[in-house]
């Protein structure tokens, strides 16, 4: 028990090297990231992009560079959702009230 504990102390924390996706979230993180990039680009082309979508995409891209695939999946989904909401919003009736 003690030996095991000491052995644990000897092991320095290691930042995991980028590896192939093994995400807790269902789906392929690389595909989700590609989809998020496409969704954000589409929202941008329609002048309907939200800053929250941009921020989530950046977070997803940064996580991908570190191989943090759960974070990629999570942020890519947010980016796609927020980009699509922006596009849907651009089709709302105008707010004019008089």
């Amino acid at each position, binding site marked *: 028990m003690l030996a095991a504990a000491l052995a644990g102390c000897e092991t320095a924390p290691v930042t995991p090297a980028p590896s192939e996706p093994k995400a807790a979230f269902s789906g392929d993180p690389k595909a989700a990231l590609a989809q998020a990039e496409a969704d954000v680009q589409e929202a*941008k082309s329609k*002048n*309907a*992009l*939200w*800053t*929250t979508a*941009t921020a989530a995409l950046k977070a997803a891209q940064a996580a991908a560079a570190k191989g943090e695939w759960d974070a990629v999946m999570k942020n890519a989904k947010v980016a796609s959702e*927020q980009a699509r*909401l*922006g596009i849907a*919003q*651009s089709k*709302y009736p*105008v*707010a*004019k*009230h*008089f």
Partner: protein
Amino acid sequence: MKQRVALFAALAALVAGPSVALATPEQDREEFVRYFNKKFPNLKYEDYIFGALALNPDAKTQYDTIMEFPPFLNELDHGKKMWETPFKNGRTYASCFPDGGRNVVGNYPYFDDKLGKVVTFEMAINMCREANGEHPYKHSDMKTMGVLTAYARTLSDGMKVNVKVQGPEAMKAYEDGKKFFYTRRGQLNFACSTCHVDNGGNTLRTELLSPALGHATHWPVFRQGTNLVTLHKRYAGCLEQVRAEPLPEGSTEFNNLEYFHTYMSNGLEIRSSVFRK
């Protein structure tokens, strides 16, 4: 029966749609003025050029005091020097505008039929530069375009805004700007009108929201004394505040927005380069 009702509703919408879109700019402006007159019955029309300050006597008193000796005089002096410094060919900015650039800003933006687009005062400055062999300034560069127009616009102080919308192409640009103004954007789902029409005069967090009437008369402003902010920079800032990605300053969308937005202030005096909190 249901199909007939749906068909009738669709036809009614078709009839109603164009009638809204075909409101003339002057009808839009008159409605705008009526709305704000009803909302602020004690506010004098000419005081709308002061924005939110017109609704807050204490803040207006502070503004008046600050404007007696504005903290941004150095910037205006620098802009004046830029305005008066000849180009390499010996000509000056004044040579590009009627009356040496005095009392011209109230006519901007205008729709240029030959170019097929809205021309803002900043674009006219760049056209002047290019016609005289100089490179254009970036609209977002406050050290060049910002400072230069901060001075140049003061040459039109007192002139009344007199924007014209004539012809179908001009009308289209105006309508684009109008649509932008009333379109909800960003995660907060706000349109320009949400804050500056519906809630003009209300307090959002600690800030009193300015009425859109008179908005376009006093740019650029110096926020906190020396932070130069042009109208397009403010548009970009507003978009960011509602969590929408800002568009580039000088973009067609912002130019058309400025066209509509300025038309709404027709008849009010230009009072450029002023202090704002």
